Every structure is written in structure tokens, then in C-alpha cells.
């Protein structure tokens, strides 16, 4: 089938192009060090960074898994809680008017300002990392799902009224299906934020957990001026973000078959 072949080759082409850009960037990096004779503590060479990746690979992998678990758990919790709140918002305009500004407020307050408070309330624990992630992911989910639930056209609403549909039938057969593409947009936006939220929370929590996440590792290596390991951790967190994003893309394609398949 043409459609499925295209959906497989297209990512491959884009992966090839992205890899090409990375190789060029690495070359420029190496040339800059050679030209300006930069010390290793300031900017290690790509080769040294790669060596750091290999020597810390176990630690980094456990960091990716730990941070990734927090990010995904937070994202899933945000999807559940955010969608439930959005459903309430879609059913009552009063509730929406009363509470939506607070959801926006949650978004406008920087997470680094809330994180210390959350540590006081929730403690130096893994749980706190998840809570921070939920807060970071919450707004895009609530916002997009609410918009999606309210996106049905006047004609479609009239159609449901014409057949005497009750609130639940309307919600289940019209509003929720209308909202699913919007939900996936919100999830995609939140997926990047989830990794940021988890790493920021780990900065604050430090070495409290037995298996350090990427944020904790970064703090430790920064204190030791291990620049090569720090850069390795940056790439590890980028990889984590990409993996989560990719899984969400796959999931979106699968879930939205009814909405988009040719």
C-alpha cells in the first residue's frame, strides 16, 4: 500500500537528514577546538565526549530510565487529570469561567519557583519529581482537550439535539471523538515539557534517590567540572526526549487512524 510505504520511508529520510546535520555540527565543533586550542575542561572534543558516553553508559542508561519513567508517569497522570478537568469544563461554562484562569496561572508561574515549595511539602523523593512533571504538563493538556471538546460545529450539535441526545450521548459520541486529535496535539507539546520538568525537579532533589536521574547526574558532574560527562548527559536527555516524542508520534498515528487514514 502506497500510504503505509510513505509513512515508513518519510521518517527514514528525515532521520538521514538529521544525522547529516549532526555530523556537520560535530566537524565544526572539532575544527573550533583545533583552531582555538580550547582546554578540555571548557570544551572537550566530540571524541572525548563519546568516550565519556561509553565509560558512563550504565549510569547514563539508568539515568535515562529513571528520568524517563518520571516524565512518562507525570505525562500520563497529566493526561488523565487534565482530560477529566477538561470534561468538567466542557460541561459547565460557569466552572470553566471560574477555574480556567487558575489553570493558566499554573502555567505562568515558573516551575523553578514552585519546585522548592513542592520539596518542602512532598519531600526529597521520587514522588516529587512526578508531581513537578504533572504540573508542567497539565496546562497544554487541559487547554487543548477543552478546546477539542468544544470544537463541534453548530450543525453537529443541532444534529444531536434533533435526536434528543442527552448530555452523556453528546459527550461520548460527539465531544470526546472531536477532542481526540486535539488531545494528541496537547500530548505532543507536553512530552517535551515532561522531560524538562523531570530534570528540573531532579536538580532540586539532588542525590536523594538511590538511582540518580539525568538531572542529578548533571548536578554532580557540574560540581566536579567533568565537562565531557556533562555533555554526554545533555545528549542522553535529548535522546530521552526524542524517544518519548517518537513513541507519541507512533501512538498518535495508531489512535487517529479513524480521523486521518486515507
Amino acid at each position, binding site marked *: 500500500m502506497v500510504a503505509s510505504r510513505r509513512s515508513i520511508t518519510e521518517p527514514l529520510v528525515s532521520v538521514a537528514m538529521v544525522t547529516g546535520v549532526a555530523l556537520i555540527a560535530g566537524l565544526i565543533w572539532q575544527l573550533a577546538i583545533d583552531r582555538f586550542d580550547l582546554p578540555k575542561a571548557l570544551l572537550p572534543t566530540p571524541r572525548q565526549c563519546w568516550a565519556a558516553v561509553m565509560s558512563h553508559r550504565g549510569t547514563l542508561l539508568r539515568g535515562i530510565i529513571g528520568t524517563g519513567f518520571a516524565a512518562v508517569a507525570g505525562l500520563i497522570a497529566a493526561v488523565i487529570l487534565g482530560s477529566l478537568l477538561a470534561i468538567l469544563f466542557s460541561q459547565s461554562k460557569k466552572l470553566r469561567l471560574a477555574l480556567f484562569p487558575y489553570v493558566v496561572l499554573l502555567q505562568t508561574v515558573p516551575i523553578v519557583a514552585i519546585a522548592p515549595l513542592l520539596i518542602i511539602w512532598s519531600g526529597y523523593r521520587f514522588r516529587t519529581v512526578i508531581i513537578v512533571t504533572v504540573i508542567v504538563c497539565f496546562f497544554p493538556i487541559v487547554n487543548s482537550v477543552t478546546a477539542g471538546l468544544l470544537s463541534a*460545529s453548530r*450543525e*453537529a450539535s*443541532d*444534529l*444531536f*439535539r*434533533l*435526536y*434528543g*441526545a442527552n448530555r452523556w*450521548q453528546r459527550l461520548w*459520541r*460527539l465531544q470526546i*471523538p472531536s477532542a*481526540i486529535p486535539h488531545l494528541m496535539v496537547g500530548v505532543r507539546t507536553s512530552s517535551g515539557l515532561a522531560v524538562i520538568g523531570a530534570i528540573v525537579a531532579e536538580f532540586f532533589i539532588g542525590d536523594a534517590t538511590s538511582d540518580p536521574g539525568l538531572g542529578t547526574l548533571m548536578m554532580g558532574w557540574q560540581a566536579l567540572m567533568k565537562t565531557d560527562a556533562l555533555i554526554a548527559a545533555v545528549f542522553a536527555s535529548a535522546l530521552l526526549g526524542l524517544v518519548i516524542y517518537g513513541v507519541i508520534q507512533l501512538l498518535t498515528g495508531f489512535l487517529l487512524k*479513524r*480521523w486521518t*487514514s*486515507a
Partner: protein
Amino acid sequence: MVSRWFTRPNTKRPRCNPQQKTHRRHQRPTIFPSRLGEALSADIEQRASSIHCRSLSVAFAGGVKAVDAVDLTVGAGEIISLIGPSGCGKTTLLRCMAGLQAASDGEVTLDPPVPANHGNISLVFQQPTLLPWRTALENVLLPLQLTQCPKQERRTRAESLLETVGLAHAMDRFPRQLSGGMKMRVSIARALVTRPQVLLLDEPFAALDDMLRSQLGELLLELWQAERFTAVMVTHNIAESILLTHQVAVMQHGKLVNVLDNPLPWPRDPELRTTPEFGKFYGCVTQRLKGDD
């Protein structure tokens, strides 16, 4: 598409009379004279309801009267078109009949009365208004799901209706995989799947090209022949309003200006467009439309 042409029992041809008054009509004695015989089962004969609007008004915020004291009766099993310039209130009047718009004064009643919101009154929108995540078949099933139709009946009814509108091969396609005309066919099938007594159409073919428009017009008459629902069709198209109807109701500024009995003989044939009668009635409707400008 093979068209069957339809006989209308009442062969009396009212002339187009410029003096004709709105409320004068409708002492029409029988709905379906027995002469029609085998074409109609008694069951169908009793199903259609006549529609009565009595001094119906709809005022919107700001005091604009979209519909102003309209008295209109649509005989059971008849097709009437509402025609008039944009913004003259025809769609609002239609929405009142559908129960989607509350009247600020007056009332709409059906005789015999039918419970509202159970699929007894159906509406075909200007846009097909299909749910994009549902296949053609699932879209046609929707009214049956919403009105709690017995589960085992749903599928056969929806499938047979899609066959009737010529979409047996496209039941499992999604709306985005259908052409504009096919979508409108699905939309009509969805409107008829509950076997409504009253079918309301809001400029149903306005977005389609001329060929499709006349094809779907024929389809509508075919379906009417089978089901004998009462139909009200809002339209901008004078030819369509003449070719498909028993009566043409002309609206201006929220008021019903005239209800003209359609003199054209049944069965209706596209050839009728070339007859002098058609031309004469066309001129008559056009004149009414210009009316009090």
C-alpha cells in the same frame, strides 16, 4: 441513475394567481386519495403529519424579527419549498419546525402530533455534517443509536437505506473518502433512517453542481414516493423549488408573502423545464420574489 417518475393523485392544477392570499389555501380535503391505491400502504398513509405554523414569530436579541407572524400549513405527505432572499428568515422558520429554535410567539404543531426528538422530524443540513471519525454506515446509524432503536434493527435499516441512495459499495468509507454528492447522499440517508414523518431540508444541494443537484432532486422524489413524508425545503434555486414541490412559499423580511400552488403536472420530469407552464410559473415565482422591493 434510473429515475422512476411519480404520479400525484391530485390532478387539479391551481393557477398562479397574483391575488392569491397566504391563508386562503388548504381546504385540500384528502391527503392521499384512494386512487393512489397500491402505491401506498395504509401504514404509510397514516405516518405523515401535516405541519401547522400559527402566527409564528422569532425575535432575536436586539429586537430583529427573523420570522414575523407566519401562518403556514403544509399538508401531510406534501413537499413545499421556502424560497426568498438571504436573511429573509427561511432557515429560522425551518429550525423552528425542527424544534431547534424556540418561537417567541405563536406555535408549530404537527397533526397528528408526534413526540419531538425521536427521529420523527429529520433535518438535512446545507453541509453534509457527517462525523469524520465514522464511516458512511456508522454515520447513518447515529440517529438510531441516539433514539434507542432496537439494536438488531439498526444495521439492516441503515444498510438498506444506503443501498437505496446508491451507496452500497461505499458503506465502509470515511467521509473524507467520499465525493460531495456522495456525502450528501449519506446525509439524506441519515435523515431518513429513522423513517421520519417530516423531512426538513436546509438548502441541501446548494453546494453541489447542477448535474448533481438535479440527480439528488430526483433521488429525493424517489424517496418521497416510497416514504411519503411531509417535506419542507429551503432553497435559493427557483427551478428546484418548482420542480420538486407541490407548493412554493415565498418569504420576504421574515414574512410569508405568498404560498403558490404548483401547477406543474405529476409525474415530474426534467423535461418539464422546457414547457411553457414551467416558464410561466417560474416567472410568477420570480415576480413574487421581487415583490415589495
